[in-house]
């Protein structure tokens, strides 16, 4: 049957359009629920994503950590010679040791201190993939020089602004004077409000309690074509159990799993999104239920005229479908705006990605269909025999 043959009066859309107040209430409810879901899921993903911004930058195939390390904020040391031992494997091409610890940074403007994540490495052998370290990285070989993460939270002081203005920015870490030699762009995470890069030598000066010969992270680069999993298995066998061998992805998962399982962050944000879903369901159900109730005599009239119940059910379903489609649009736009605002305010890497946009759309769709399904039970009360 062709389109024009089967076309009917678009009852569902006319019912929505001709009742603008009801439509507005429904759309406001759906948008609100959508925004809530976008916000909660965005925060959740953003926080988990942010927790590994630094991890992702390492140019390594395998990573050594201490089995006592639980996360980026609690990194324990292990003997550096384990990293050297791994060179015994034929597939290992290169190694780099990294010092990793939280330090107290003094804000050069307000003189207050705050915890910052400091990484110490050999400036001759940088370990970041992209973007490459700035030319100032070479200055790190001078003692007391650091590279400051320009995406650090503003509580650390206007370091980046001052540096760009050409001023000499000096501050203090654990009572030792340091000078900012350059800027890098990394980003904040759960554990770290800011990041600092320095040479291993300066790092050990700043943290005199660290045992020499002990490192927190060992990066291993493999020869092209080497099987990372196989080398991981060989190294695990070769090295004593005072180190853990992880692939780079395993290292990222290790960090994310900590925040996922050892904290209630994932649960809380998922619960928040679920709340949005429930609130949306209630609002859409209320609107559709009242709509069906108000039009009950009209539905009964249509049944008396010979329309099938299925047709009337179709009207309610279509109303739900239309509400989902129209309501998603403002929710999506508001979500975009919200993410922009959150990025600006918290410097968390929260952004609209296709998966989340699709997830929220599906949730709104399910929400509206569920509500329509519940509301259409009211149609049972449409008795055409009662309207005479």
């Amino acid at each position, binding site marked *: 049957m062709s389109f024009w043959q089967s076309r009917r*009066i678009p009852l569902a859309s*006319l019912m929505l359009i001709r*009742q603008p107040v009801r439509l507005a209430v429904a759309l406001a409810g759906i948008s609100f629920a959508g925004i809530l879901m976008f916000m909660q899921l965005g925060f959740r993903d953003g926080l988990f994503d942010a927790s590994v911004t630094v991890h992702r930058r390492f140019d390594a195939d395998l990573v050594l950590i201490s089995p006592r390390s639980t996360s980026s904020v609690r990194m324990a040391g292990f003997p550096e010679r384990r990293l050297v031992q791994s060179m015994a494997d034929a597939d290992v091409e290169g190694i780099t040791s990294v010092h990793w610890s939280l330090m107290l940074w003094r804000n050069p403007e307000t003189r207050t201190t705050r915890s910052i994540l400091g990484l110490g490495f050999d400036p001759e052998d940088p370990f970041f993939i992209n973007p490459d370290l700035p030319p100032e990285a070479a200055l790190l070989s001078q003692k007391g020089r650091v590279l400051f993460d320009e995406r650090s939270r503003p509580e650390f002081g206007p370091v980046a602004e001052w540096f760009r203005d050409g001023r000499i920015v000096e501050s203090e870490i654990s009572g030792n004077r340091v000078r900012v030699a350059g800027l890098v762009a990394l980003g904040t995470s759960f554990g770290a409000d800011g990041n600092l890069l320095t040479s291993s030598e300066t790092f050990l000066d700043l943290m005199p309690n660290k045992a020499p010969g002990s490192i927190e992270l060992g990066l291993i680069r493999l020869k092209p074509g080497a099987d990372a999993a196989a080398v991981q298995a060989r190294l695990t066998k070769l090295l004593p159990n005072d180190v853990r061998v992880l692939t780079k992805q395993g290292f990222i998962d290790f960090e994310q799993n900590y925040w996922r399982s050892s904290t209630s962050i994932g649960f809380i944000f998922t619960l928040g999104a679920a709340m949005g879903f429930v609130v949306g369901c209630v609002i859409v159900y209320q609107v559709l239920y009242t709509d069906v109730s108000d039009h009950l005599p009209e539905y009964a009239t249509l049944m008396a*005229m*010979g329309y099938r119940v299925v047709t009337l059910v179709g009207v309610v379903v279509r109303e739900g479908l239309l509400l989902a489609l129209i309501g998603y649009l403002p929710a999506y736009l508001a979500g975009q705006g919200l993410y922009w605002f959150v990025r600006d305010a918290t410097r968390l890497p929260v952004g609209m990605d296709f998966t989340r946009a699709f997830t929220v759309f599906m949730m709104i769709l399910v929400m509206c269909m569920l509500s329509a399904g519940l509301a259409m039970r009211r149609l049972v009360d449409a008795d055409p025999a009662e309207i*005479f």
Partner: protein
Amino acid sequence: MAAAVSIEGLSHWYGRGTNSRQVLQGVDLSIQPGEVVLLTGPSGCGKTTLLTLIGALRKVQQGQVEVLGQSLNGASRGSRQRLRRKIGMIFQGHNLLRCLTAEQNVQMGADLLLDQSYLARRDLAREWLRAVGLGDHLNKLPHDLSGGQKQRVAIARALAAHPRLLLADEPTAALDSTTGREVVDLLKRLAREQDCSVLMVTHDPRILDVADRLVKMEDGRLFSSVG
């Protein structure tokens, strides 16, 4: 030609068991194609019940009912729904869809004709509205129409589905005498042109003369008289 409606020994009860109340008692009635029958009687005597039974809106409990050649005894929900497509109904209140314009309301009737295209059905709706004298009010919502105009839209909607039988329950109840007269005359004329039988329940003594036949009902029984 077979009768449009033929009823023998129809009885109907509301409620169950000891609380049940008999509203129809052995009703016999037959309506010929094209005949206009008026049904009068005091309120609560079972007129509306009879109308809903003929209109295939209720299940027949006892007696024989045949409408437009189809027996309604034990008819399923689906077959009653299909039969209703051939029956036009006009209600005491106009029962128009508030969200639809006059034209769209009439097209809801025309949309039951599955063998015609959308545009043909729309033209049909416009034609019917012109036939009831509302050619200038196609795009008005029921809200903006007077009582008489609304009832005329309802007539157009009922006739747009090409019914073989038209059931009307006090179509003039909400109208003043002049308008009521006009509406009934219009109804009769259009039904005649379509060769459509009409069964109209009314209290209104001013319109009794449009009937081919007058039927009186009292306490669930029919008393025929020639009109």
